[in-house]
């Protein structure tokens, strides 16, 4: 019998190892798997490379993981956001590496990673400093820059509903990087608010087919990052 549902976030992240590359879903707080990130902080893995659009806010979730010096390198498109202070401070001290990637290029590199495509050409960033030292090529008179796929050891993703096969649907703009990250990691770990029986998600409406998912954890009332930040909460509490 296939059952990808595990009993706790702790169990779901137990084998994340030092030096792992981890994709973390979310655009700002929307879609950020806070409970899985907190379980990762408790678990202790370090020297991590994190692929995520932003760097978290306050001292919870991704920002807390960074504050605990578990992250060696961030690959992201926009490391500064409102209430984002942890990353900028460490970056200015030279204590964390940054690879800045245009948002669409980041998405496509992840998509390519999941789709078995090692590299691709894109018009984005041509003529800018972000194309420096990258291979370029002209197709039909237009210059494109080559970008490499990104693959990960683990993906931590927040979705709305899952069944035991790992079929997923998401909530509104919290979908963002989730579906592509699920495809690009060796082990994809999902936190969902609702577990449903097989057939509980209309097959026409499945967003992430279960084949891309290895583990599912039920987090009934996920924390809201902006609320925690407004309350000055810090993880671990």
């Amino acid at each position: 019998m296939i059952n990808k549902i595990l009993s706790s976030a702790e169990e779901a992240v137990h084998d994340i190892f030092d030096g792992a590359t981890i994709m973390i879903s979310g655009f700002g707080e929307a879609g950020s798997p806070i409970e899985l990130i907190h379980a990762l902080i408790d678990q202790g893995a370090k020297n991590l490379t994190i692929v995520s659009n932003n760097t978290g806010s306050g001292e919870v979730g991704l920002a807390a993981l960074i504050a605990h010096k578990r992250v060696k390198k961030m690959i992201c498109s926009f490391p500064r956001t409102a209430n984002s202070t942890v990353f900028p401070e460490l970056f200015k001290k030279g204590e964390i590496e940054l690879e800045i990637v245009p948002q669409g290029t980041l998405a496509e590199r992840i998509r390519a990673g999941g789709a078995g495509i090692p590299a691709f050409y894109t018009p984005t960033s041509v003529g800018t400093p972000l194309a420096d030292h990258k291979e370029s090529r002209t197709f039909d008179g237009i210059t494109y820059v080559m970008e490499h796929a990104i693959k990960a050891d683990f993906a931590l993703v927040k979705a709305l509903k899952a069944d035991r096969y790992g079929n997923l649907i998401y909530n509104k703009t919290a979908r963002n990087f989730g579906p592509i990250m699920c495809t690009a990691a060796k082990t994809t770990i999902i936190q969902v608010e609702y577990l449903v029986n097989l057939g509980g998600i209309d097959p026409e409406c499945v967003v992430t087919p279960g084949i891309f998912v290895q583990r599912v954890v039920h987090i009934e009332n996920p924390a809201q990052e902006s609320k925690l930040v407004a309350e000055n909460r810090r993880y671990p509490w």
Partner: protein
Amino acid sequence: MVEKNIIQGWDVNQMAQKVALDIPDGSYVNLGIGIPEKVAAFVPEGRELIYHTENGLLGMGPAPAPGEEDPELINAGKKAVTAIPGACYFHHADSFTMIRGKHIDVCVLGALQVAENGDLANWSTGEPDAIPAVGGAMDLVAGVKTIYVITKHNTKTGESKIVKRCSYPLTGKAVVNRIYTNLAILDVTDQGLQVKEMAPGVSFEYLQAVTEATLIL
């Protein structure tokens, strides 16, 4: 450039209105964060535009009433928005397929500098201790069919933002189609920057005097 009588020209709302009037009915539109967002308020009645926000929503509606905000329904500026009837959500690779694949008709962006050949700089001042952050700007200018820039003509210290060559790091090369400032509307053409319209009280001589780039009347 020291000018004795500084002309303010259009205010931000009037600039946004000028942009709104130029967007055809039925367009798919992406509005950048900040001043560009104001454009939506000035779309003439009878025109239907569909707003794309690159974090994964087509059919973005206005901000919700206070107390109705949903932290999982936001725009690219991470502000709460609504979804209109007929809206749809999608993941980031699809969202940037819409952008890079030239499916979005118009994008309105702010600028630090625009050069006379249409080069745009709007993501970094290039200062050594600045933390680089690019977001979707480079994808938008590389992929959207028509790029409109809305910006003050000059910086707070009076320097021209409309320049011969951008000194800040580029967002894209030769990507801007039209510039809306408080003083004028400028078209980027093969011949150079063509003045399409000037704000009341602005003469061509005045406009050229406060502009680093060469203008064509």
